[in-house]
Structures are given as structure tokens and as C-alpha cells.
């Protein structure tokens, strides 16, 4: 029975000696001795909608903040790879904790992307030594995804200092963060060129200039500090500017390429936990004279969730590798991952919830520790923040013609053996640091990884996927007008491409010997089924 083996294999694989491993060990030890990481304490904190202050203190003491700082600035030696694993470990424990703790990376990312050397060193020091919390102020009340429409303003005074006015809300950790990177309008010119990113250090501002806004209550991640901040005539030093004036939107979009791939770790963790909890239940539950996990339907649900886990883990791995070796492709890759991973994870969470029945719906109590209901609820944030699924898809649609053209050109040059792509995996294996300077707004090379799916006559699911890829890209090339690109049919192409990207990552790992053939084949055939479940227009009519 495939499902039986899967349960044990699917725990967060942390590298020996890494920061993530050491945190995982300490968390387990703390939980075992009735500390704040214990299951009851976690459940009680969630019920009370309380911020995980105790956990954060411990994580800080255990060296957690190193995860948020690039290796070259003295952060964790495994750079974003360590960060990804840390997010995963924390989120497997509790999504609120991961979201509340790791936000500092998102707040600091614009500095890693565009900050000057001194500014970078300063932020690295504040985060690692002083355990400063950083948050990220993009969104404004009443306005969501349209970043260029913000009304927060920063004026430059003759002495070079900046005067900041406006409100950022909802912002994760806004009332806890000493540091806050703010996207503000610095020129009257409308549009992106009038925007800049400023780094606000609470230590520099008088109390009047910065008013915290109260914590918002939320559907999930209930203890997180989702709050906001109002600036009125807040004076920032000249050095607060991050990068060049007028590059605010650009810096933000580039930083998002890195944060989005890290955010996907939340979904990987949620799916890992859900699969474990429900798998254990199904193997133990007597139903209809047998064990639930032995009934074919239940076995399929569990096996599919395990295959989905291989897909999302593989896609995140190649994305992390891309950030080191082909950062100019991240605009496509991280959007595919940020849209595709939460979507696939949510689909399988829903199926697992069905299998778990009443237990998955119970709050903490004698029958259930409430863990499943909590994670199912918490996970819904992942597809919403850090760029919603729709926003990420819109970003890829715009690049579809280039992705298609580059794919065709590479294909014409001969079938890809994948050899030239193995560096993606090597970079992940060797924990090569992200190349923050190499990111670009649009990918001129399209998405090279898709090149492993070029042979429609390949045996098994890989062949089906290659056929689906070429049909998808062909349809993408036919999108001529802006109106075409906004149509749901165009968005559907991207949804397919997300699955194809994850499948390509699995196929590459199979070729590199990282995944056994049968396990890879299961993941690929799940991907093939799910791509076929998103038919192109022509197929619907048939």
C-alpha cells in the first residue's frame, strides 16, 4: 500500500548541522518538557489570539534571526535555503509562529535587494545582534494589490532628511517592528517612477511621528500582529532611502521575487502536517471492518497528498536554486511557485479534511488537539498575502509570449538532457546564496527549467506533460491584446504552467537521482492529471 510508506517519509528534511535542524531539535525538546512550544500551550495561545512572545524570545536566543540575513552579511551559511527550512520547521509547528517570526525577512528584503553596503551591514547587525523586528509597509487602507496607487508621501527637506506622512495597513508586525520598509510616493509624478522605498528605524523617530494602529482580528493566524502604522510628519534621516529615488516599485517587485518563494514554505509545511495527522488517523481508524487507509478511496487521497508534497517541495527547491544561479528568471519562477504551491496545497488539504471527518472540525478538547482545524484555517492566508494568486498569475500572463518563444528556441536547439539544468539542483544542494543583485523585472530567458519537459514521446507521465506544456505555450503565444491577457482563459494557462513547473522540477530531480523513479512517476502522474483537469478552451468544446 503506497500510502503506508508515505507517512513516515514526509517530514521536513532538515540538513544535519543546519540552523533549521538545530531549531527543530530545540523546539522538540522544549515541547517535550512542557515549554511554550508544547501542543497545549500552542493551542491555548491560539485560542487567546495571543502573539507567540515566549517562542520568539527563545528563537532569538537560539540564533533564529540569522536566517533572515544573507550569508555574505554574516547570516546563516545556507542563506535562503536555511531560511526556507526554518520557515518550514516553524510552520510545521504553527503557522502563526512562522508568519509572526519570519516577517523580518520580508521587511528586510528590499534592503538586501537595493540597499547600500552600509545600510545592509547596519540592518544585518540590528536583526542579528539586537534582534530587531522588521516589517514591510506596502498596503494602505481601502487599497489592496494596486501598489502604485499608494498615497503615503515622503518629502525631502533641504537638509536631506525625509518627512513621511500616510498610513500603512494591514501590516504584519507593524506595531512590533523597530524597522519598517515603506513604499512611499516621493515625487508628484504619477506611476511607478514617483515611488521610493524608505527604511524607517523606530529609534530615529519621535513618538509623535509614528502611531501604531490596533491589531486587526483575523480568520486564521489569529495571534499574529496584523496591525498598522500612521506617520504624521515623521522625520527620517537622509540615509533612510533604500536604493535610488524613484525606484520604489521596482525594488519592491524585485524583493517580492525572493519573498514569494520563501512564503511558499508555509504551504509546504501545512501540507506536510496535514498529511501526517490524517495519515496517522487513517491508518489507525477501523471502518467497515478494515482500516480506513486500506479502503481504495482513502489510500488514493493519502497517496495523492504525498505526491503533491513531492511536487511542491521539488518546485521550491528549483526556485531556491534559481535564485542563486538564474536570478533573472525569478520574475516567472517565483510567481509560478507563489501561485502554484498554495493552490495545490489547499486542494489536498481540502481532500484530507474530508477524510478526517468530524475530527478535523473539532477545536482543542478531549477528542482532538485542534491542530488540523487550525492549520486548515491558517493556511488560507498564504494565497492572499505577499501578492495574491491572481496577482502572481497576472504577472506571468504578461510574460507568457517570452516564455513560449524561449522554450521553442531551446527546443529547436535539441532536446534538453537536463544536464545544463542540474546546476539548479546543485545550487540548492550546495546552499549557494541568493543573488539579490541579479533579479530583473522581466525574464528575458523565460523559464529554462520547463525545458526538461520537451519530449511528448517520452514514456509515462513525462510525455503527457510535455504535450500539455507545448499546448499551453502555444495558446500563450496567441494572446495578443491586453484584454486577451486579462481573460480567465489566459489565467487558466498560468494555472497549468504552475503544475508543469512543479512537474519539471520533479523530473529534474528524478534525472539527478534525488527522487526514485516510482516516486517521481507518482508525482508526475498527479501533475498530469491535474493539468488535464484545467482544459484549454478547445478541449472544453470537444
Amino acid at each position, binding site marked *: 500500500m503506497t500510502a503506508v510508506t508515505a507517512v513516515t517519509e514526509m517530514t521536513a528534511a532538515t540538513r544535519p548541522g543546519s540552523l533549521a535542524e538545530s531549531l527543530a531539535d530545540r523546539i522538540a525538546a522544549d515541547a517535550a518538557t512542557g515549554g511554550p512550544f508544547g501542543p497545549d500551550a500552542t493551542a491555548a495561545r491560539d485560542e487567546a489570539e495571543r502573539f507567540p512572545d515566549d517562542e520568539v524570545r527563545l528563537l532569538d536566543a537560539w540564533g533564529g534571526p540569522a536566517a533572515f540575513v544573507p550569508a555574505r552579511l554574516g547570516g546563516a551559511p545556507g542563506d535562503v535555503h536555511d531560511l526556507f527550512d526554518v520557515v518550514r520547521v516553524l510552520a510545521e509547528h504553527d503557522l502563526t509562529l512562522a508568519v509572526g517570526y519570519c516577517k523580518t525577512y520580508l521587511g528586510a528584503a528590499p534592503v538586501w535587494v537595493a540597499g547600500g553596503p552600509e545600510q545592509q551591514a547596519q540592518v544585518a547587525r540590528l536583526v542579528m545582534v539586537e534582534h530587531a523586528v522588521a516589517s514591510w509597509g506596502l498596503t494602505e487602507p481601502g487599497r489592496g494589490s494596486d501598489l502604485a*496607487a499608494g498615497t503615503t508621501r515622503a518629502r525631502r527637506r533641504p537638509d536631506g532628511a525625509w518627512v513621511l506622512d500616510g498610513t500603512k495597513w494591514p501590516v504584519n508586525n507593524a506595531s512590533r517592528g523597530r524597522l519598517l520598509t515603506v513604499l512611499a510616493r516621493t515625487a508628484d509624478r504619477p506611476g511607478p517612477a514617483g515611488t521610493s522605498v524608505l527604511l524607517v528605524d523606530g529609534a530615529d523617530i519621535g513618538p509623535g511621528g509614528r502611531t501604531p494602529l490596533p491589531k486587526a482580528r483575523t480568520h486564521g493566524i489569529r495571534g499574529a500582529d496584523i496591525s498598522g502604522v500612521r506617520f504624521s510628519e515623521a522625520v527620517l534621516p537622509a540615509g533612510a532611502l533604500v536604493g535610488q529615488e524613484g525606484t520604489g516599485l521596482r525594488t519592491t517587485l524585485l524583493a517580492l521575487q525572493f519573498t514569494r518563494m520563501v512564503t511558499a514554505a508555509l504551504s509546504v509545511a501545512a501540507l506536510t502536517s496535514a498529511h501526517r495527522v490524517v495519515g496517522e488517523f487513517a491508518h489507525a481508524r*477501523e471502518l*467497515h*471492518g478494515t482500516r480506513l487507509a486500506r479502503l481504495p478511496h482513502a489510500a488514493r487521497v493519502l497517496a495523492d497528498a504525498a505526491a503533491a508534497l513531492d511536487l511542491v517541495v521539488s518546485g521550491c527547491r528549483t526556485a531556491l536554486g534559481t535564485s542563486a544561479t538564474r536570478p533573472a528568471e525569478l520574475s516567472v519562477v517565483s510567481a509560478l511557485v507563489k501561485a502554484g504551491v498554495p493552490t495545490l496545497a489547499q486542494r489536498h488539504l481540502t481532500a484530507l479534511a474530508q477524510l478526517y471527518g468530524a475530527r478535523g472540525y473539532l477545536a482543542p478538547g478531549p477528542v482532538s488537539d485542534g491542530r488540523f482545524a487550525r492549520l486548515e484555517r491558517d493556511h488560507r492566508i498564504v*494565497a492572499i*498575502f505577499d501578492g495574491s494568486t491572481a496577482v502572481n498569475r497576472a504577472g506571468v500572463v504578461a510574460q507568457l509570449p517570452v516564455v513560449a518563444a524561449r522554450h521553442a528556441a531551446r527546443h529547436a536547439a535539441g532536446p534538453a538532457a537536463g544536464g545544463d539544468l542540474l546546476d539548479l539542483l546543485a545550487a540548492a544542494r550546495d546552499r549557494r546564496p541568493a543573488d539579490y543583485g541579479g533579479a530583473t523585472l522581466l525574464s528575458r530567458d523565460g523559464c529554462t527549467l520547463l525545458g526538461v519537459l520537451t519530449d511528448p514521446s517520452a514514456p509515462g507521465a513525462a510525455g503527457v506533460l510535455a504535450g500539455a506544456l507545448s499546448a499551453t505555450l502555444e495558446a500563450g503565444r496567441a494572446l495578443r491584446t491586453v484584454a486577451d491577457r486579462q481573460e480567465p482563459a489566459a489565467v487558466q494557462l498560468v494555472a497549468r504552467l504552475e503544475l508543469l513547473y512543479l512537474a519539471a522540477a520533479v523530473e529534474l530531480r528524478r534525472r539527478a537521482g534525488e527522487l526514485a523513479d516510482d516516486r517521481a512517476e507518482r508525482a508526475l502522474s498527479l501533475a498530469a492529471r491535474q493539468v488535464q483537469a484545467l482544459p484549454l478552451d478547445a478541449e472544453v468544446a470537444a
Partner: protein
Amino acid sequence: MTELVDARPVDGLAAVEAVLGDATDLGNPFGHAAIGTHDDAGRLAPGLPQALTVAGLGAALVPEAHGGRLRGLDGLVRVLRAVDRRDPAAALALGVTPFMAWANVWVAGDAGQRDAVGRLLAAGERAACAYHELDHGNDLTANALTARPDGDGWVLTGRKEVISNADFCAAAVVFARTEARPGPRSHSLFLLDAAVLGDPRARTLPRYRTAGMRGVRLTGLDLDGCPVPGDAVLGTPGRATETALRCFQLSRVVLPGATLGLLDTMLRLAVTALRGRSLYGGTALDLPATREVLAAAFLDLLVADAHVRAVARAASAAPEHLGPLASGVKALVPEILVGAVDRLGLLLGSQFFLRDGTGATVQKLVRDARPTSFGHASQVTCLVSLLPHLLRCARPDGPAPTVPAVLFDATDVGPVDVSRLRVAAPAGDLLAARAAGEPAAGWDARVAALAADVRARGLADTRVDASAAALDAAHAWTCAQAAGACLGLSDAGRTPLADPLVRAAALTRLALQARRHEAPLTRAAREHLLDLLLARVEGRLTLDLDPDPTLA
């Protein structure tokens, strides 16, 4: 775009709407805001049960012959849906759960038991329906709570867990083991009245707290040698499993049918919130991707309502056929509902996730939607129960049933005669048969292919250990039933399904659903549905097939 408001009165509907008042009024004790606050605290809005009783909710559950006002199940569904639009927890605790208890009494009880329980419910008392044991879940025949004969009566020992209203009811139906041997003839049903429930040996279990449906008091019964009089047995001893299979036919339609009210409210709130959200110089409603999700959710609601409506009417018009039709509704409608609710939640984005105003209500609806799919009988349980029926329908020489036109029209369909409900339906499927003759969206070929597939699989693959492929076939069959319902309603005129564009969109959507595929609507269908939807929201009309006035 204007539609005619349906003039056909449904008894109780207007009265329920009237006591619920304006949902958007912050001062309304039964408005969204007040209900949300009480829900957070794990209770129904104070006064709501009494107000609904005055509006006739209790009476709506019980047939005319037994002291209430119930005629067809379609009317009952519409009344319950009005409550569900406001608070799904209230609909479950005050409507659906008492109805489920009543269904057992109705099907198996004697005249005295029917009159007694009918009177209680019509007066607004609550009842509990206690089947579930945590150790056995969907496996009814494994249930352990035991009744042993004792003189003229019985003695009950064991627990029923996660039971709505168990600590707060005037009567409880309890499913108990009366024979030690395994099998379908080893259980009996008992009707516990207030006297028995008040016995110190009948304790109630502490409350289970749940992610959603928080206003429902979920507790349980812990019976420790509790004596029960001999006349408390419902129906023939040993036949409880058969009774359950018959009375579940009623509840498998009523429960999902009522829950569609939740999608109605969610959709209404989404339209309003997105229309008010500025984005890229316009509003979020200008984005084709947004329009698609809203239009598709509206279509889902129409399709699901068509399915519910035809089957609810079949309970009166063709009760012998109800079993497989009701299993189809319970298998498919929750899937459609939960899918649409989740997509709307995602579409609302931060307006869903932040718990204020609209968000608070929307979150509650997302949470409350979940048990519809796994509760009562899981989707798989319903699909498994369909498999033998499919095999009978798939016989090449099987009879082609005549489909009564009354399933689809707007006439009074008359009362339900529960004595005609059957454990095994006659061959032939009243709804799938309609789809089998329809070339649009490939339905004729699809139904034929399903039949061939089921035949090839044979009897061995129709049991609880059914293969995943067999369950896929049963799932596709439920979509054929829904397609049949849409076709019937479309031909009958009057509802939006009569519009050729909507009809075609519905058939295509179900064809996709049959394979669990997803694809966007055509642009023409999307814009047409959206126009219709916006006009309904504007006119404060319900968003299901018949546009009833509503203050939701």
C-alpha cells in the same frame, strides 16, 4: 435585466424573512453583526429560536397530517434556506436537526409517537437525532451503544457523540444495538422522551467545540444502564438500519438544500464588497477574473438548486425513486457549495481574512460550510450507496423510466407519503435518464460510457471497498442527475435556466464537474450571468432559482 418575481407563496417563508429583518442593520438583533458576535461566543443570537418559532419554523418541519404545515420538501427547503442565509448554525440546530429526528419518527413511528413528536416540534421544541459514535463514524452497523431487553422495557448503555441539541432537547432518537451479531438487522431505534432524558442514568456529555457551526450545541449522550419503556421503540426492533436508509433519503436532500442559503449570502456580500473595492483606477468588479468567479458561483448556485429542487419534489411525486436521487444530492451539492464558497473567499482576499464588517460574516460562512460535506453521510458513503443502483441502471435491457413533469414545474407537488420510500429503488434513474437523451455538452455519450464502465466493473466493485475508479463513475453519475434536473427545469421555462445561454453554461459546467475539471465560462455566459446576479442583488432578491424577496 429584470426577472419576474415568483408569486407562488411558500408557507412560512415570508414570515421567517420578516422576523429576521434587515441583515445589514447594525441595530438588528438578528442582523449579520449581532449574529456574528454571538457566534464568536458559541451561541445563537438570543431570542432567535423563539422568533423563528413564532414565524412557524417548527410547524414547517412537520406534515399537515401531524399538526404542522409541511407539504413538499421543496417548500421546506426554501424556508430552511431563509434561516441559513442568516445563520447556518441556527438552521442546523433549529431546523435541520429536528427534521432529521422527525424523519425517523415519521418513517418508523406509530401514530402516537408521530403525534407526540409532531406536536413538540410544531411548538418549537428541539429534538436530537443521535446516531454518531466517534469510534464508528460512517459505519452505522458497527455502532456499539447497546439496548438490552429488561422486563417490558429496555436498558440502554453506551455513548452517542458529537450530537446536535443532545443536551437541550425535548426528544431524542437513538440508534442502538439490540443484537450482538454483526449485520444490518442488529440495531433498533428508540425515542427517548423528556422523562427518560431526565433520568440520572442519562447524562449528557460535555460540549464539543468546533471550528464552525459554533452556535450549535454539540454534545452527546452517555447512557449508563438507563431504563427505557417498551413503547419507546420506533418501528420494528432490529430494523433500524432499514429505517435509517429510508429516512436519510429525506435528510440527504433537505440538509444540502438548506445549506445553499449560505452560498446565497456569501455571493451577495462578495458582490457588494468587490464593487466597493477600488483597484487600478476602477473597482475590483471590473476585472474579468473577478467577474468570472462571481458569475460561476451564481451558476453553481442555480445548478445546485435545480438538483435539489427536482429531487425534493421527487420525494412527493416518485418516493420509490428517492434513494439514489437523494444520495446524488448529498454527494454533489456540498462539493459544489464548498468549492464556490472557497473560491469566493479567495476572491475577497484581505476582505475575507480580516475579521471586521463583511469579513466577520464571510469567515463564519466559510467555517460553517464545511460540515455539509463530511457530516451526516460523507460523499464517499453516498457514492458507495449509489453503486448498486448504477449497476441496475446500466443494464442494456433496463426499463426507461417515465420522468414525471411535476419534478420540474412550480405546482404544489403534494405531501410526501413516507410509506412509499424504499431501501432499494426500482431500476431506472429519473434524472440521469433525462441527461442520457441530451446531446448538448456530450451528455448522451457520457451517460452511455458511464453505464458501460459500470457494467464492465460488475457487482464486485459496488461495495464499501469500491475502487477509486468506481467512485469516480458514481460521482460523474451524480453530475448526470444534476444535468437532468437542469434540463427538466430549463424546459419548464420560468427560471434563469430557461435561457439558452444559461442552460448551455450549466450543462458544460456539470460536464466539467463530472471529471472534476475546471474551465472558465464563455465570455457571453459570464457577462449575462453577472448582469442577472447584479440585478438580483440590487433588487434584494434571493440568488437561487426563484427570486424571492429577502433582507439577507
